[in-house]
């Protein structure tokens, strides 16, 4: 079951990368999640490399015109998927100027399309308070699988801000699917007792103990004891 949920999440991410319906790729859920993640990275690399010249031109354009126009062109001409790919080739300083002119809703759509392997500087350029707004928007949309792909790449301050706005549902699912689970201990340490209790109670109420156990398996002793204490209470 554990691998099945991870494989299902990977298929969803792959479908997004290919801009296709996850149903179309449902047969892939039979494959191990590690293989699917590698495949997704290959697809992302292939799509970036195949049109690298065009992406580089778009990135050069973003650096040649005023930031306000670059933001308008990203939103109105490129759309979230192409913006995410172009952004990986745009300088960090330039990205900051463009990001602050884009609406949260559009940034949320770009964030779920980003490949953090190539575009971590984009995530780092988004201030913590705006990242929290973006995360809240994605939580409202139920984009928990997509969030699990980039949340782990945020700065500590942005991560703290994001965690503070996420619902128990999001914390449980994003935490379970997080692509860099080594950050889970810090995330749980930052949760208030009240938030942690909500997560534990939700896991029990919705029979999602597997997700909670998956999170706990990455925690150090102190945070694991906190979770266990809440679960027993």
């Amino acid at each position: 079951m554990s691998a099945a949920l991870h494989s299902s999440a990977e298929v969803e991410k792959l479908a997004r990368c290919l801009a296709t319906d996850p149903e179309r790729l449902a047969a892939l859920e039979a494959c191990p999640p590690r293989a699917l993640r590698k495949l997704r990275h290959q697809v992302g690399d292939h799509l970036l490399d195949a049109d690298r010249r065009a992406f580089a031109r778009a990135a050069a354009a973003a650096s040649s015109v005023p930031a306000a126009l670059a933001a308008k062109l990203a939103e109105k001409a490129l759309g979230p998927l192409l913006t995410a790919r172009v952004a990986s080739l745009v300088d960090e300083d330039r990205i900051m100027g463009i990001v602050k002119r884009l609406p949260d809703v559009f940034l949320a759509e770009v964030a779920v399309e980003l490949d953090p392997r190539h575009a971590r500087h984009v995530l780092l350029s988004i201030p913590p308070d705006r990242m929290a707004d973006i995360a809240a928007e994605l939580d409202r949309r139920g984009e928990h699988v997509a969030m699990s792909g980039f949340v782990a790449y945020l700065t500590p301050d942005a991560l703290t801000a994001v965690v503070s706005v996420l619902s128990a549902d999001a914390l449980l699912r994003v935490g379970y699917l997080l692509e860099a689970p080594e950050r889970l201990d810090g995330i749980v340490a930052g949760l208030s007792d009240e938030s942690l209790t909500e997560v534990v109670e939700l896991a029990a109420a919705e029979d999602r103990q597997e997700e909670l156990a998956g999170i706990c398996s990455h925690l150090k002793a102190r945070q694991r004891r906190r979770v266990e204490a809440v679960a027993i209470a």
Partner: protein
Amino acid sequence: MKRQSAPARLQDPLAGLTEALGSRPPKALAVLPREALEDLELAVRDARARQASELDSSVETSLRLAPRPLKPLLRKVLTG
């Protein structure tokens, strides 16, 4: 890239996907039914074609949205 012949695809279930991706996919995918692999290969090719088309469209849209004084610069950067 040249497409693999039918016999090559029969011998190697991942040949078509390798060709579409330009790199060898994880061997764990070889257990998938042939139809699933062919559909995945098609999805990769579709995504690439759609991306190229959308990039072309984005150039036209960008030039239409740009203020007149910036159009020549933008055209030069975007079209080379």
